[in-house]
């Protein structure tokens, strides 16, 4: 086997391992979650010229939108990384005799897939590195084809890379250019100079950047922007590997090795890619993190069973947002007032409404919540907050389009529709819903229109119970509003309010009282000893009555609160257990 055939074989092998790794990656991470967290409708290409790295941002968003189509996303990703691999191989072909040359390139390529394990890691870093590398390879190729001004194509590419693909790819391409031009001291100096001079152009031509931003964006941490450590690692890895390969070039010429050492090296050459892939996968793939994001993703997709299934793993995870999503799932599965306390409720009413939180991350879930309830103004309000803080997310745009259409504001709905229609992945949705812009009504629009209150009232921040009451009074058939009101009473121990709503259960057609309502009633009756309470034809189940008796006896027998908690552990899913031991309220309200 000739040496060049060996190299080709290794190349195919490395690409195959890379392909396999990408496939496994896509099978195990959920690309839908990446879209959920990062997808934004891309700007027009022409708008990408308005800021440094703008074209990179536009292209990255287009690629992310393709992750909605799993197979296509996989192919595009592999193509990107594969071409990155081949670009580096071409650029540094002089190092092909180095036994670890292909491993080095493989490692650099693999590092670009790492960010996908962390769903929140901005894909724009990866795309900046990839696109810039492609461009510098093109520049080098052109410079080899011309006889004069060989430095010109590469210099032009560097300028191009900075303004179009941003700082990360720009510096990498400068390093590649410097290392590549090892024969020409002057060209090296020129490219080093350009690495400093080109960012300065952005300071001269526009006043919209600080010095740090011009030179180091997106590696400049601010109070609102934390740079992940992995970003530095990924960014440094590629030039580091290239420098190492260059530095050890002469000592590692494969052809001078003894047969025994050659075998050893072959083993390393073929084994390292597989081992490295396995190690990266093992140490980077955090299944817990995935399942947490999956809860939020499933909630957005209205996959309530998926939410509940994942939530079971995180019963003790202290996130208001997760509690909120879990409670939504319980409602939609018809279980909210039966099994609410089977899932921890340490956030109290915040776990129901999230109204106190002012954070862009929770704006869209709140918009969705009110959307489902049919409370149009609140849904629109929070969707607008989400749009501003999290960008042109397709889901947010859809929410706004429907909300504005329901409110008869077709002009603004059309604007958001036009924006959404720019995204390939969501054109179908846009087409299917185009009729809404002309007054057509679907079930979502109908629900929103049916629930607009006739009489105005203020929503009030941080007073969800008040607004819910007013909303329900305006919409007495709104089951979701009613159940959340009851859940609110359960969370806040208002057993008397629950007792007062028994007639409402009848009006809304409940065939039986939900289990937690029974439990609340039992406590209410115990406290008030009301002999004339009108059950409106409902009967409290014998099971609930017996459980209450057993619970009460066990608590009385136990000496002290701590012992009582242990004694009634089997009732930890009940309302009584919640108010005694789990409620965030410091006191029990008397009704």
């Amino acid at each position, binding site marked *: 086997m000739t040496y060049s055939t060996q190299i080709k074989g290794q190349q195919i092998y490395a690409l195959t391992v890379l392909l396999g790794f990408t496939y496994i990656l896509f099978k195990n991470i959920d690309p839908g979650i990446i879209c959920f967290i990062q997808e934004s409708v891309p700007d027009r290409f022409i708008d990408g010229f308005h800021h440094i790295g703008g074209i990179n941002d536009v292209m990255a968003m287009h690629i992310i939108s393709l992750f909605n189509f799993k197979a296509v996303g996989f192919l595009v990703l592999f193509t990107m990384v594969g071409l990155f691999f081949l670009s580096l191989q071409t650029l540094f072909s002089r190092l092909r005799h180095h036994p670890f040359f292909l491993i080095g390139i493989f490692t650099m390529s693999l590092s670009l897939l790492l960010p996908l394990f962390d769903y929140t890691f901005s894909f724009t870093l990866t795309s900046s590195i990839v696109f810039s590398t492609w461009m510098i390879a093109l520049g080098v190729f052109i410079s080899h084809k011309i006889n004069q001004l060989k430095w010109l194509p590469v210099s032009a590419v560097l300028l191009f890379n900075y303004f179009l693909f941003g700082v990360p790819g720009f510096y990498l391409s400068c390093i590649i250019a410097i290392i590549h031009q090892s024969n020409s001291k002057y060209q090296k100096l020129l490219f080093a100079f350009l690495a400093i001079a080109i960012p300065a152009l952005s300071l001269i031509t526009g006043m919209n950047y600080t010095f740090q931003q011009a030179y180091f964006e997106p590696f400049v941490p601010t109070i609102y922007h934390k740079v992940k450590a992995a970003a530095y690692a990924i960014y440094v890895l590629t030039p580091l590997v290239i420098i190492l390969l260059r530095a050890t070039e002469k000592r590692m010429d494969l052809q001078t090795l003894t047969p025994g050492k050659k075998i050893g090296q072959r083993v390393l050459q073929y084994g390292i890619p597989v081992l490295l892939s396995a190690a990266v996968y093992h140490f980077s793939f955090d299944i817990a993190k995935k399942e947490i994001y999956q809860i939020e993703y499933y909630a957005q997709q209205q996959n309530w069973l998926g939410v509940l299934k994942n939530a079971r793993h995180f019963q003790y995870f202290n996130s208001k947002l997760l509690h909120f999503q879990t409670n939504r799932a319980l409602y939609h599965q018809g279980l909210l007032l039966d099994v609410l306390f089977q899932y921890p409720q340490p956030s109290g009413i915040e776990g129901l409404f999230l109204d106190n939180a*002012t954070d862009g991350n929770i704006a869209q879930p709140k918009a969705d919540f009110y959307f489902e309830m049919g409370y149009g103004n609140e849904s629109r309000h929070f969707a607008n*907050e989400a749009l*501003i803080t999290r960008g042109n997310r397709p889901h947010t745009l859809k929410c706004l389009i429907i909300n504005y259409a329901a409110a008869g504001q077709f002009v*603004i709905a059309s604007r958001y529709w036009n924006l959404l229609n720019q995204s390939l992945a969501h054109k179908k949705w846009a087409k299917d819903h185009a009729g809404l812009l002309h007054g057509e009504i679907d079930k979502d629009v109908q629900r929103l229109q049916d629930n607009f209150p006739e009489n*105005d009232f*203020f929503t009030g921040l941080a007073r969800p119970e008040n607004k819910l009451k007013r*909303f329900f009074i305006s919409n007495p058939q709104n089951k979701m509003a009613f159940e959340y009101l009851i859940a609110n009473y359960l969370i806040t121990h208002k057993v008397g309010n629950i007792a007062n709503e028994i007639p409402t259960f009848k009006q809304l057609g409940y065939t039986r009282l939900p289990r937690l309502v029974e439990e609340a009633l039992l406590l209410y009756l115990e406290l008030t000893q009301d002999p004339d309470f009108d059950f409106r034809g409902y009967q409290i189940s014998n099971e609930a009555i017996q459980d209450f008796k057993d619970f009460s006896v066990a608590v009385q027998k136990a000496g002290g609160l701590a012992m009582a908690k242990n004694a009634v552990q089997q009732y930890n899913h009940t309302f009584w257990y919640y108010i005694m031991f789990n409620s965030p309220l410091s006191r029990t309200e008397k009704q």
Partner: protein
Amino acid sequence: MRKPLKYTFFVIIILTLASCSKEITDFQNTETEATIYPDYAHIAIPFNMGPLNFTVQEQGKAFKSHFRAGNKSFWLRARGNRMVIPQGKWERLVSNNKEDTLFIDLFRKDEQNEWHKYPTIANWISRDLIDEFIVYRKIPPANVLWNEMGIYQHSLKTLKTYPISINQLTDHNCMNCHSISASSPDRFMFHMRAKYGGTMIKYGETLKFIDTSSDYIGSAGAYPSWHPSGKFIAFSVNRINQDFHSVKDKIAYVQDKYSDIVLYDVGNNLITRPQELATGARENLPTWSPDGKQLYFISAPKSTDSTNYRDLRYSLLRIGFDPATKSFGKIDTILDAGTLKKSISFPRIAPDNNTICFCLLDYGYFSIYNPESDIYTYRLDSKKLEKTEANSSDVESYPSWSQNGRWMMFVSKREDGILSKVYFCHMDEQGKTSKPFVAPQRDPDFYSRYLLNFNRPEFSSARIDLNPRKVWRAAREIPLKTVFDEANSVTITTGATSLSMEQPEEIYKSDR
């Protein structure tokens, strides 16, 4: 070297010839007017305004237009349906034909390659100058959170937009309530909140960063108004609360629990709390008369828990001011809300010192959230209250005057009910207004894609010499604390404005 030069010259000739549009002589007349967007048909335009680029909202294979005024004209071929008017040709045509009509003949080519002419659009070229720049804040249609925000200046002549301050450089803080003194670009200020909180004041060549907050005045300065001399700024200090409606056609409601007006001495860094303007009533939105001898403001009764928001109405008041002694005189009520059964907001006095424009709305003062808000004028000499013809069925707000008092600028949500845009209309000596038109942009499609609000537009006669980096450098300094002028202020124990120990509630929050 000669060959490339020859080729280049040749290419230039071809391109120049290609850009010239041929005259259309063979066409059929159409009766219906063409729909153009933005609507720049049958308006009065200032001679020194840049080209009014527009799109033709009709179906056609190609479009052309013929711009003519006096004995000059030029033809223009649309790029698709976009009429992008060459700056130079426009300027020469319009500026040389003041007090004349600008005719726009619009032609459409159909599928059979036949040309059709729409009825001619006739615009009036006013000889009245308009201030060259407008300064505004870009904010999204959100109410609590923000992310990117900035204050910009837009040239009405070149249609270029320049950032004055953008919060990407200042840790995404909030910037608001900019104000400019008598359209002078040398006297400009705006507030910043959250990170780098303070007030940025540009006074001549100096840029200073001050902190107006104080235990004496309840909150940092909010709504500002520069004295025409540039020596003082009147600020309101407010406890602002925001709430949200539940009915379909309304969004938010902003009201002040309390508000006073204080006076900031720019040269001496002193804040005075005059007793006349720090009563139990809610004094707000100060604005100076052009001669600087009167301070106009709005005032509503003291806040009570039982006050229904629909009953909260502001009257228009005025108080005399002596700049030499910094003393205030007697308060006059110009327009009483109780009599009008309406609320007044954002008063601005015209350069003639006689005409006041303001918003009239059903309640409150934060007119941008009141769809019924309209612009009215009031003449002090004749005491005539008039509704301008510039209004629409949706909100008009924040009116202001050009330096010569002939152009009125305001924001309106007339197009979609959500996003506010800047509009202009001409006002003649009799107070008659022309049809309003939206601020022109370089890209005729600009407004069809723009999803932010134009907030608090102010005129400036020239470009303000500020850019985001200058602002960022100044903001990194610790703001200079203003000194409270106790000797000339009403004490905090007198005056009916109660000082809360709580921090004022922010209308906006950053996204954290």
